[in-house]
């Protein structure tokens, strides 16, 4: 739902969901098609007993939802089941899905990128090492380019070997120019130049790559804050989006990542990558719930078109697939 898409929103919502789900699934299901979902397998048992709830809780834990959140969700579910006198396990299943959906939906409509009216749109991409930042930028750039936008990329990772070359290749693939300095240069200087270029040449969108950094490294977090400050100073209102790229394979440490990155620069959204693997990315439920940070995009592969908007429903479905 990247703004541009909103214009085309005539199609029935249901169909959109279905399509998204099919695509997400086809991205996911290289070896797993044809299996019953974990949830269906369990709820196939019919009886609602203690063991049943325990199994549901374990299903959540193995999806990286986290032991505390899982137990909180399941105790809520127990109450629901009691209050509504649920007899059928498939009703409880539905109830569980709705519980999780309501958490995801609480931040969902906000997922749209908010394009400013009379200013170029600046996106800053941050995250720990190897999470998929540069690849996501390539995919995002290509998407906007195809939608007819004038996109500029900024090679703000001046630290990692060949990071600049990597972004340049994505620039070529997507047909977007890249502003770069030499390896080892001050990333803020690159960003400064890129913003000047955006202003002078009338770009619609600028996407800034940054070096991967662990959220616990004070000096690197300071460097990132500076990048953000420069953006805002040179273009009031920028950056309009600060996306944290999170590898779906990540466990509970993702919470610490989101917290510390959020404290440092304020995250406007998460891009959840590598959902084409067997990891579920359930930890984002916690992040959405506690930090009120929406997931906006998902990555489902390494190719340029493997980027999707996040949709709660297919995500929850996939969560329970085994």
């Amino acid at each position, binding site marked *: 739902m990247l703004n541009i898409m909103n214009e085309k929103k005539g199609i029935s919502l249901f169909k959109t969901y279905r399509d998204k789900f099919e695509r997400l699934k086809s991205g996911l299901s290289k070896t797993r098609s044809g299996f019953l979902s974990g949830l269906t397998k369990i709820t196939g048992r019919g009886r609602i007993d203690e063991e049943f709830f325990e199994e549901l809780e374990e299903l959540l834990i193995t999806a990286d939802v986290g*032991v505390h959140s899982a137990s909180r969700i399941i105790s809520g579910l127990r109450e629901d089941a009691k209050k509504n006198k649920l007899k059928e396990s498939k009703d409880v299943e539905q109830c569980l899905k709705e519980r999780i959906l309501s958490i995801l939906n609480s931040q969902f409509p906000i997922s749209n990128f908010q394009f400013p009216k009379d200013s170029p749109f600046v996106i800053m991409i941050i995250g720990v090492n190897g999470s998929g930042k540069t690849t996501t930028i390539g995919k995002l750039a290509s998407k906007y380019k195809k939608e007819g936008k004038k996109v500029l990329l900024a090679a703000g990772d001046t630290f990692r070997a060949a990071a600049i070359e990597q972004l340049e290749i994505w620039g070529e693939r997507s047909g977007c120019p890249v502003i770069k300095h030499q390896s080892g240069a001050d990333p803020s200087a690159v960003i400064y130049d890129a913003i000047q270029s955006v202003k002078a040449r009338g770009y619609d969108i600028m996407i800034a790559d940054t070096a991967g950094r662990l959220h616990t490294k004070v000096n690197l977090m300071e460097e990132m804050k500076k990048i953000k400050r420069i953006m805002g100073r040179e273009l009031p209102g920028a950056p309009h989006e600060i996306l944290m790229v999170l590898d779906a394979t990540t466990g509970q440490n993702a919470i610490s990542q989101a917290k510390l990155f959020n404290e440092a620069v304020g995250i406007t959204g998460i891009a959840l990558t590598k959902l084409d693997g067997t990891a579920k990315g359930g930890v984002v439920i916690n992040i959405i719930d506690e930090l009120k940070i929406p997931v906006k995009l998902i990555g489902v592969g390494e190719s340029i078109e493997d980027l999707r908007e996040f949709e709660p429903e297919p995500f929850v479905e996939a969560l329970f697939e085994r």
Partner: protein
Amino acid sequence: MFENLSNKLETIFKRLRGYGRLNEDNIREALREVRIALLEADVNLNVVKEFIEKIRARAVGQDVMSSLTPGQQVIKIVYEELAAILGSTGSKIVFSARPPTIIMMAGLQGSGKTTTSAKLARMLLKDGQKPLLVAADVYRPAAIEQLNILGKELGIPVFNGNGTADPVEICRGALTDAKENGCRSIIVDTAGRLHIDEDMMRELKNIKGEIKPHEILLVADAMTGQDAVNLAKSFNEQLGIDGIVLTKMDGDARGGAALSIRSVTGKPIKFIGLGEKLDQLEPFYPDRAASRILGMGDVLSLIEKAQDSFNEDAAKKMQKKFREDSFSLADFREHLMQIKKLGPLDQILGMIPGVGKLKDKDVDESELVRIAAIIDSMTEKERNNHTIINGSRKKRIAKGSGTEVYEVNRLLKQFVQMKKMMKQFSKPGFMKRFGMPGNMLGAGRGMFPF
């Protein structure tokens, strides 16, 4: 975020005072806490279940040692069992009797293979095993270039097949190249791939068939969650791995993936990655990893880190100051700056068992710079004797450092607290009270230079 397991267990057993022997009933609640701690650390659920059963079997019927509380006794068992499962210390690369020794790296996307390849090459170079790096990741944009740059930085040759698109062919060429150039070791960096990607997994098998590596290392991210078992099992079953490298251990991940991977593969964790620099590859120590997974502080690592950053003389001087209570704000400032070099403050403090509590008390690492500014605004006299800092002095200091009086107050409070704590640390026998096994304590080294 994670409450210290040992504190939790102490609370549980306080309610159960008077037990001389552990039994099913009195350890049930403790085991529940252990289960939660392990899950929070991202150990896979099934691995946790198995582990807990093992602990239960071992603990029931044990007499509580006179020197330990029941909580400490349980921790001791858990800790020992964890360390045992995690394996033996410092597994090394076994060099082939007929060089070159061929090492192949494999793993998911973004796990750190390329950086680890370079780090390993550096290590082998130091060991006199003249390495050749092989760039077999033809897929990720600029992956080959990345390895080229790292090789150049290290002065280690990189074989990249000059535009060859087939990784198997690149590897074949590399073998010849290594022999021609008298290399004693070969490290093959492969593209990151998903364990469920059949085509890509087949490619790895083909590379393996071509180069017949002596060692296949699975590179895995320390932040990996429950999926660690799936990927490790898959790579091991399809490829057969010989060891594991756990990367990004310099963050605050508890690293439960280590236990998951080790449990499902049975293969040793050989190295850990501790940073982006090429010298930041270290042997894996099961005892340290065990205490880290339990969230109980990584005392040994702390001591070693500290030893790296402080020279011994300075440390001794500092200890003396603690003991004699002559530690001043000037010393405090100097050491805050040293600590800053070590890493995030809360992480450092978290490495010390029992210090968990201090975390709530506003010790925020991003404040280090402000703290330094405050101390810089003090007069020499004030720095050497904090007790003379009265209200008007505080106002002046706040103004001079661009801070507020409450911040000056907070700093002084923290300083006094720290002084008190450090005085305790510097007493011999302090660590014993935590009932930790001797090898964790760096026995008698008492090196807490801040």
